[in-house]
């Protein structure tokens, strides 16, 4: 018997905790179909009124587009810069490049509020407050750690001699990247892209500070909505965000399965 044998109570407790973790967020789904005008479960029957309000609101729909394209552009930028950085550090493999990789994950540890404050001051000087370009830059930099981590994980399974062989046979750096390295780390790059995308799509604190008066991504409009009045329309938005995240997470899990196989 080479396994732990927990008592039934421990296992039951674990499943109870797991449901405490996984279930609460889904409460917003029935609430989004409420027939009342306030935040509650449906009372007499289901109603699509709040979904209609949402789908006919230019503000909410505009915010979706705003968030979506900011996330796409900053993900592409973070994936390119992050992948190149991870590959470079992997190949150099010195104590200096290890330090670079360590610096790259610092944005995950430093509290976002500190960064948001500093970025706001920088953006006031650069006249970038309230611009989508400014948000894209911020989300690119804070998305880098996810890409560097997943790509580095992929690279650690790759034999460095492959790269040496390619260069030894006369391939340029660009050719080596294009034909030898990148094809071998695609799952890692895609995982990084997914994480960077969700990061930007969900990011709130930086946008609150640098969004100015006019720039409302989806999380910021939700934040304002929750602080102003608890309209059930927010439950509709939350439902949409959950379903979207589930979709993206499923893609990531299938990638992960491919990577480990």
């Amino acid at each position: 018997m080479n396994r732990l044998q927990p008592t039934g109570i421990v296992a039951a407790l674990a499943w109870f905790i797991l449901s405490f973790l996984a279930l609460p967020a889904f409460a917003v789904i029935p609430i989004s179909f409420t027939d009342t005008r306030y935040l509650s479960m449906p009372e007499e029957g289901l109603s699509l009124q709040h979904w209609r309000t949402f789908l006919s609101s230019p503000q909410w729909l505009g915010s979706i587009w705003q968030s979506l394209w900011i996330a796409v552009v900053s993900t592409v930028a973070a994936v390119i810069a992050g992948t190149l950085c991870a590959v470079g550090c992997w190949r150099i493999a010195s104590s200096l490049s290890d330090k670079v990789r360590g610096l790259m994950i610092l944005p995950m540890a430093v509290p976002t509020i500190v960064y948001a404050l500093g970025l706001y001051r920088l953006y006031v000087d650069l006249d970038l407050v309230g611009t989508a370009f400014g948000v894209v830059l911020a989300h690119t930099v804070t998305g880098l750690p996810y890409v560097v981590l997943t790509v580095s994980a992929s690279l650690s399974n790759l034999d460095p001699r492959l790269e040496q062989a390619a260069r030894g046979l006369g391939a340029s750096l660009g050719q080596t990247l294009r034909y030898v390295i990148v094809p071998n780390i695609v799952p890692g790059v895609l995982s990084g892209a997914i994480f960077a995308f969700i990061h930007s799509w969900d990011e709130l604190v930086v946008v609150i500070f640098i969004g100015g008066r006019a720039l409302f991504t989806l999380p910021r409009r939700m934040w304002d909505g929750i602080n102003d009045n608890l309209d059930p329309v927010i439950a509709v938005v939350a439902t949409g965000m959950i379903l979207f995240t589930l979709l993206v997470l499923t893609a990531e899990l299938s990638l992960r399965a491919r990577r480990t196989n």
Partner: protein
Amino acid sequence: MLSANRQEASRHGAYWLIVLPALLMLALLYFVPLGNVLLTSVTDPKPGLQNYGLLFTSTSVQKALVTTVRIAAITTFFALLLGYVVAYAMRAASTRTQRFMLVGVLLPFWISVLVRSFAWIALLGTQGPLNSALVAWGLVDEPVALVRNETGVLIGMVHIMVPYAVLTLYANMRGIDVGLVAAARSLGASRFQAFRMVFLPLTVPGLIGAGTLVFILSLGFYVTPALLGGGKVLMIAEYVAVQINDTLRWGLGTMLAATLMIAVLGCLWALSRVIDVKRLFGA
């Protein structure tokens, strides 16, 4: 030999070139802003350390600090407790069950903090389903205040932090040879003795890592305390935001932000002397 070395160096030169874009972005758009916060904290409104003096003299600053450390500590305690049970059950489960449990942990992990905090407002509010159930079952006479107070903040924060604890603890437990526990059992230890004297000590590094991670992440929390605390539970991050947005006291705001950053990096540095920090963040 010399030319081979030079060739090697120039090849690395090319690789440093592809590291550069990310490094430059990080330097200009990440470290410059952080440096700005540090600089402002000692120059606004006039040069000197008087902003930092407020840490020792201002009662409202001290109250925010105490609230922050208390909430972060309680959150860490419960996140470790609940996380340990889940990680332990995962370690003991079959591969198939493990995968199910992992999905249960990752699912909330990737749903945005904003959406989850909003869901708690809806669930725990006085008109919410939980209070309706409590009243209907006759457990309470009138709805209980579960949100817009410290209870709400703690529920929301523990909910967000448990997955971090589970993932870190589970990574540690996976490396433990459970044959040791079986050996202790066959030598006559009771189930509880085998756990307490063999398994538990081996998970101490995981507990330290998970505890530090959860604690430093909790210190800087903004969205959840702001929404679930209803303005009554002022943690440092929200206190900073109020200084900047409402009272425009940049000196005080940046000083607290800098203090927060130094505290977090200090904890990480201390931790790095014990375990490999990069692995905490999934490397």
